[in-house]
């Protein structure tokens, strides 16, 4: 039990992992709240999986995979964004296609790269214990960018998420704001991929925010609560996975999932009791 804290105190890899969890929670709390209230979970899944194409290509060409991830995440966000704005009817079909094609391209690039492909698993499922100092720096910069842009665009984002039509009447360029929001989602996904990998990103993007939404009245409190919940999940997951040597990303997601179930049960119970009381009076 105490061994974990000793390692955290002494070893840089564990310190990096811990810091990565904290920094990623900030991004996932803020942007995850938008993803949940705007109901763009599926779009986020599409962006996340097409990132593999970028990581694979960067790996193939000998560049840092994180660079490829950032570029392709933004590219996928813009592509999917434009598609969802133009083709409302078959939106889900097209996003599904981008999702799968992105993954396929990534797999092909990785298979053509000489050497052994140990990295594939860490792309898909993340490896928070392997985060380097420079990765940490990039994550911190992306975090700063996300916080700054959300601070600047808080009102237009809220207007567009709550009521697009009314936002348009207010003279807001709804499409541009929507695309910017998707780009921020893309950056957040890149940050979260470091923690839990491409496949499990959706869990960190949605679960803390969904938990927070049960207990708050506004979007800003939702972001703050979701950030806090994210920090608890990542730290607890790191701690719980250490001793039994479990995969860290999966343990973090299981922690978030369990807390989500508890929160949902509590919320439903509270609502049920309120309804009972409402009947009596």
């Amino acid at each position, binding site marked *: 039990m105490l061994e974990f804290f000793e390692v955290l105190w002494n070893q840089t890899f564990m310190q990096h992992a811990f810091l990565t969890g904290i920094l990623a929670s900030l991004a996932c709390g803020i942007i995850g709240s938008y993803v949940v209230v705007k109901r763009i979970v599926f779009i986020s899944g599409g962006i996340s999986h097409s990132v593999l194409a970028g990581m694979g290509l960067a790996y193939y060409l000998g560049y840092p995979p994180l660079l490829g991830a950032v570029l392709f995440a933004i590219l996928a966000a813009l592509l999917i964004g434009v598609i969802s704005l133009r083709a409302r009817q078959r939106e889900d079909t097209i996003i599904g296609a981008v999702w799968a094609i992105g993954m396929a391209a990534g797999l092909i690039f990785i298979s053509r790269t000489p050497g052994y492909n140990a990295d594939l698993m860490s792309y898909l499922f993340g490896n928070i214990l392997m985060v380097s100092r420079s990765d940490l720096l990039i994550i911190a910069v992306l975090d700063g960018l996300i916080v700054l842009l959300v601070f600047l665009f808080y*009102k237009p984002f809220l*207007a567009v998420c*709550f009521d697009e039509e009314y*936002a*348009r*009447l207010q003279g807001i360029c709804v499409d541009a704001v929507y695309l910017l929001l998707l780009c921020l989602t893309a950056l957040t996904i890149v940050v979260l991929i470091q923690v839990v990998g491409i496949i499990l990103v959706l869990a960190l993007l949605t679960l803390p925010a969904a938990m927070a939404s049960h207990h708050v009245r*506004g*979007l800003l409190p939702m972001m703050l609560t979701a950030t806090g919940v994210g920090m608890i999940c990542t730290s607890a997951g790191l701690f719980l996975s250490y001793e039994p040597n479990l995969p860290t990303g999966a343990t973090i997601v299981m922690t978030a999932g369990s807390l989500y179930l508890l929160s949902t049960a509590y919320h439903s119970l509270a609502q049920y009791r309120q309804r009972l009381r409402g009947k009596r009076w």
Partner: protein
Amino acid sequence: MSTHPLIDVQNVYFQYDGELILDDVSLRVREGEFVGLIGPNGGGKTTLLKIVAGLLVPQKGSVLVLGQPPREISSQIGYVPQQINLDKEFPITVLEVVMLGCLGRASLFGGYRKRERELAEKALAEVDMLAFRHRRFGTLSGGQRQRVLIARALAGEPRLLIMDEPTANVDSLSQQQIYDLLHKINEKCTIILVSHDLGVVSRHVTRVACLNRRMVIHPTTAITDSMIQDIYQSHVHLVNHGDILPSGYEPV
């Protein structure tokens, strides 16, 4: 009262997916009027409102509000959409909903300004919902939500208020309260509202416009049986005879 009409819609045609929704529709509304727009479902009422609000652009015809294209003066138009389109699960407070109504009045970037808060609180007081300002929007009743949406429209200090079915999903007591409120608002603001409830609307408005693809305007609020016949029967007639209309089709 100015000589120019506040709303001047002339010979507007609107087509959606190959279907003609508005066919040569004209409508003039003077400042200070309270116009009720009635007609059967699918008759084009919401479409006409959205055209007046600047959300849709007609294929043919001209639309002027306050003498300008609606898109250019949208900040002077207050719009109250149908509630159904809003997400009740959305975590947002009543005050925030109303502050979104005056985004055009303050800086779009950064946090909320004092001026936005003041305008929003004033609008909430006007609809008697100030006490609810810190409540979550989704937890309110249908009538209360409607009043908050009216406050959002009023927060922009509009000269024209456009409302789409303001009393749908609202119990009859709240319905009466909303109409009382609209009469008060009408003292300083022109109102045009859509409803399918002819009986209720005719008691409150100064003029009724009937829309079923084409427009018939009645100068008084006297609703006769033949009027109802014209508006609703012709629609049934239309359905019965398939979707191809004879060229000389006239609802009157």
